[in-house]
């Protein structure tokens, strides 16, 4: 009888050929894990190509999940368990397996053919490479085919189900119930009974394999995490972003218009919003990136919440239109799901190197507010905030997500729509007295009125040319241009009065070292600083949500520490901006590998700064 061992946290990596269904079982296991109340962080890791050659290193697709009964803020640096469906998956992922870690392999993926495709001279199962690990060799393909002996499926269709065998087995290993996946299969294959039947059989076969063989002597249980009371769901970043935009427009009482062009890793936002016509969302798949933002500008001009979304290369194309939107002073949200660049870069790998593009990347004096979510669920709240800023200050807002949080998942204690604050809009009322309307008068926020076509008596012309203060007529007057430039800048700077003050999240409010991050580095920095504080070190942590304007007390906070360390997944962009804004000299920790920062490397870096 296998013993049931309790563990605080586990990291599992599912890896196989793209097409082996690793993403699917990864997300199924994630949902199942969330449902039993574990905290979790995930990291899907797939190649850019739709189907790289089978069996090669380039074709390896992986899904990493870190789950536990403690607070989980990262997907984990090293895995406890590596599931490898073929040689390439093993070779690629072995470096990150913990010493004495567990490897579960599909024997059929370790034949001579696969060995050659993965460029290995000898078979890792036989040449001693895996001596220091606990290796379990299971002929998953054969067992899958056997369990489907009685069905009428062809060989290829049978083999496609082998991921379900793995999933079933892992469920057994972690003492789980199958119902969440059974429900999923019932829904997904409702109209394809033979596929539904096959997948169900194989799932159960994998589970029973654990039960009936003597392969494993230990099963594991990871108790639920102590999380705040409430109702939770599992959420992926891009999904949360789409929901946040939709909720924001709903709270403002206006339609949402999303103009976009497919681009990795932002396309899922378009996919999600395309299904939300019921919720006042119109999506427009434009002919190119520029048409995407221009259509959103047109929609904002007409009184909708215009939004566009893309990744680095697309945002670059939108530069001129962004500048137009800034001088038109219309509300707009521009989402950048950052990926590794420059050029085409690494489309499915994460990076946060578009910060300077967001802050500086337009011609002319063109400051724009920039905000960044810190985790998958936070994409909802950041999107909501972006909508609010855009509508209150009549300005485009840059929303900086990245591939890691866009595709990552975490449990989310979600709000009810009634509990979210109403968002006010600035619509100009009709005029019937025959007076000339002045589109560039300003309120206490320096925002101009939103005078929307169709409103009686407000006929006026706006455009990209510099305009006269108040009247909005085209003006080349020198004094006017300087004044308008300063007014636009002041309007954006004033947003700092509207944003909350920056808080120190962990550690003392002044002292030796402050570690400060922005965007998706939140989880790993928080995790490292928490551990260092437990070990008795003097270190503090704060995380920026607004990159422009900075919180009004940021300078005072930065000057309260001897040193500031900024970890970033770029070559030092926030460091550069802090330096030029405040004449403070932070240190940086820069990882530019298309991967999130790992806990161990960051901890080492912080320790070396503490020394």
């Amino acid at each position, binding site marked *: 009888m296998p013993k049931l061992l309790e563990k605080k946290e586990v990291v599992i990596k599912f890896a196989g050929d793209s097409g082996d269904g690793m993403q699917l079982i990864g997300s199924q296991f994630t949902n199942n894990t969330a449902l039993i109340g574990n905290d979790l962080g995930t990291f899907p890791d797939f190649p850019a190509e739709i189907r790289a050659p089978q069996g090669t290193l380039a074709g390896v697709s992986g899904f990493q999940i870190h789950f536990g009964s403690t607070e989980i803020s990262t997907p984990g640096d090293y895995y406890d368990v590596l599931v490898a469906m073929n040689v390439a998956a093993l070779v690629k992922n072995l470096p990150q397996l913990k010493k004495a870690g567990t490897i579960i392999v599909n024997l059929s993926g370790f034949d001579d053919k696969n060995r050659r495709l993965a460029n290995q001279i000898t078979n890792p199962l036989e040449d001693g490479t895996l001596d220091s690990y606990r290796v379990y060799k299971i002929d998953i393909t054969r067992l899958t085919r056997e369990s489907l002996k009685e069905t009428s499926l062809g060989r290829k269709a049978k083999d496609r189900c082998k991921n379900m065998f793995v999933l079933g087995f892992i469920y057994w290993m972690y003492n789980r119930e199958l119902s969440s996946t059974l429900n999923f299969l019932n829904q997904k294959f409702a109209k394809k009974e033979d596929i539904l039947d096959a997948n169900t059989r194989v799932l159960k076969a994998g589970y029973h394999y654990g039960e009936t063989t003597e392969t494993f002597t230990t099963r594991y249980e990871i108790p639920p995490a102590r999380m705040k009371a409430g109702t939770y769901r599992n959420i992926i970043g891009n999904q949360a972003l789409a929901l946040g935009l939709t909720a924001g427009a709903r709270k403002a009482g206006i339609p949402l218009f999303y103009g976009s062009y497919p681009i990795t890793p932002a396309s899922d936002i378009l996919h999600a919003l395309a299904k939300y016509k019921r919720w006042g969302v119109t999506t427009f798949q434009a*002919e*190119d990136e520029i048409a995407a933002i221009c259509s959103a500008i047109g929609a904002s001009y*007409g009184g909708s919440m215009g939004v566009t979304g893309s990744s680095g290369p697309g945002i670059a194309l939108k530069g001129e239109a962004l500048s137009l939107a800034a001088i038109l002073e219309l509300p707009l949200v521009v989402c950048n799901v950052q990926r590794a660049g420059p050029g085409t870069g690494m489309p499915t790998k994460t990076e946060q190197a578009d910060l300077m593009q967001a802050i500086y990347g337009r011609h002319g004096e063109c400051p724009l507010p920039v905000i960044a979510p810190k985790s998958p669920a936070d994409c909802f709240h950041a999107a909501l905030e972006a909508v609010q800023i855009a509508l209150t200050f009549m300005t485009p807002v840059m929303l900086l997500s990245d591939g890691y949080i866009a595709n990552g998942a975490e449990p989310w204690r979600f709000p009810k729509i009634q509990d979210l604050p109403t968002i006010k809009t600035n619509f100009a009322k009709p005029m019937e007295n025959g007076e000339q309307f002045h589109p560039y008068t300003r309120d206490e926020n320096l925002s101009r009125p939103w005078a929307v076509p*169709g409103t009686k008596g407000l*006929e006026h012309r706006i455009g990209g040319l510099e305009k006269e203060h108040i009247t909005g007529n085209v003006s080349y007057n020198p004094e006017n241009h300087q004044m308008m430039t300063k007014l636009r800048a002041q309007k954006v700077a004033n947003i700092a009065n509207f944003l909350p003050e920056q808080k120190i999240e962990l550690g003392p409010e002044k002292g030796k070292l402050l570690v400060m991050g922005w965007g998706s580095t939140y989880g790993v920095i928080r995790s490292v600083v928490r551990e260092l504080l437990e070990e008795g070190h003097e270190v503090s942590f704060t995380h920026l949500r607004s990159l422009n304007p900075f919180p009004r007390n940021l300078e005072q906070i930065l000057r309260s520490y001897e040193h500031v360390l900024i970890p970033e997944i770029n070559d030092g962009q926030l460091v550069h901006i802090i330096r030029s804004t405040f004449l403070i000299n932070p240190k940086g920790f820069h990882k530019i590998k298309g991967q999130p920062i790992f806990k161990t490397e960051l901890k080492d870096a912080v320790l070396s700064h503490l020394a």
Partner: protein
Amino acid sequence: MPTVKLTAKNFATDQDVRWCPGCGDYSILKQVQTVLPQIGVDKEKIVFISGIGCSSRFPYYLNTYGMHSIHGRAPAIASGLKLSRPELSVWIITGDGDSLSIGGNHLIHVLRRNVNVNILMFNNEIYGLTKGQYSPTSPQGVVNKTAPMGSIDRPFNPSAITLGADGTFIARAMDRDPKHLQAMLKRAHQHQGASFLEIYQNCNIFNDGAFFIFTDRKTKVQSTLFLEDGKPLVFGKDKEKGIFLDGYKPKVVNLADGYSTDDLWIHDESDLYKAQILTRFFDDPRQEGAFPRPFGVFYQEQKPTYEDILFQQIMEATSEDTSDDAFNALIAGNETWEIS
């Protein structure tokens, strides 16, 4: 219907018009100001969106809602506006450079999508605002600032491209025939779908006379073919010439040679194949045997507009529960769990 009777004066602004004296744009502005009170749309529902160029200064001189946007991108902005506010009357003002050079992609897509907008393309075969470079419609060999040895580019044929992009209303007019231009503006408005109206416009500073052969009283009769639906294609001082369709090959014939008007090609605005042939009447008018340049409506077809279909989808989707409870179910997703 408007509650107040509108006149051309209602549509004039107090801004000084800054086109060069003698520019063809003045005439176009006048005809638009004359037509707008006649189309039965409330003034506040009319929007003009322009790109960049002399053409694109147009919105400033009309007292309607207007946006002077960026080079080539007016169709994209107008699409976003029209899709979200389908009840507005949306007009796009563009030029030959704005629409066929930098804006080429957006032009063909707004036509393909059949968004119900009216595209007025002022074609002066030159880049005027930037002072005299050749444009995508300039004839090959023309000598100017960026082609001192003569331009190498062959020109685009605007009617052929727009028809090729499956535009559902393709027409041409000229700045110097005010009555015809007014009629074409009205037709463009009436057409439910993307209307493309090319307007030959004389830039008297950088390309003076480019269209005189079509617009001057003396030469016009031989060089132009004014299309009328259901009428034979005839031209000439005394309508002595006609177009005869031999199979699919058009031929210029003299009626005196024994042709009756019944033998000739009768214009049919709904005939796509004939329209394609008509758009190819694009010869250099100074050449021997050149076909006359057609003016009027080449082609018109009634097809559902993009926003019609979008609206149907929205109606279908929103027939379901859209209450806060239902929205909360959206936020909650398929599976939730409680922590107490």
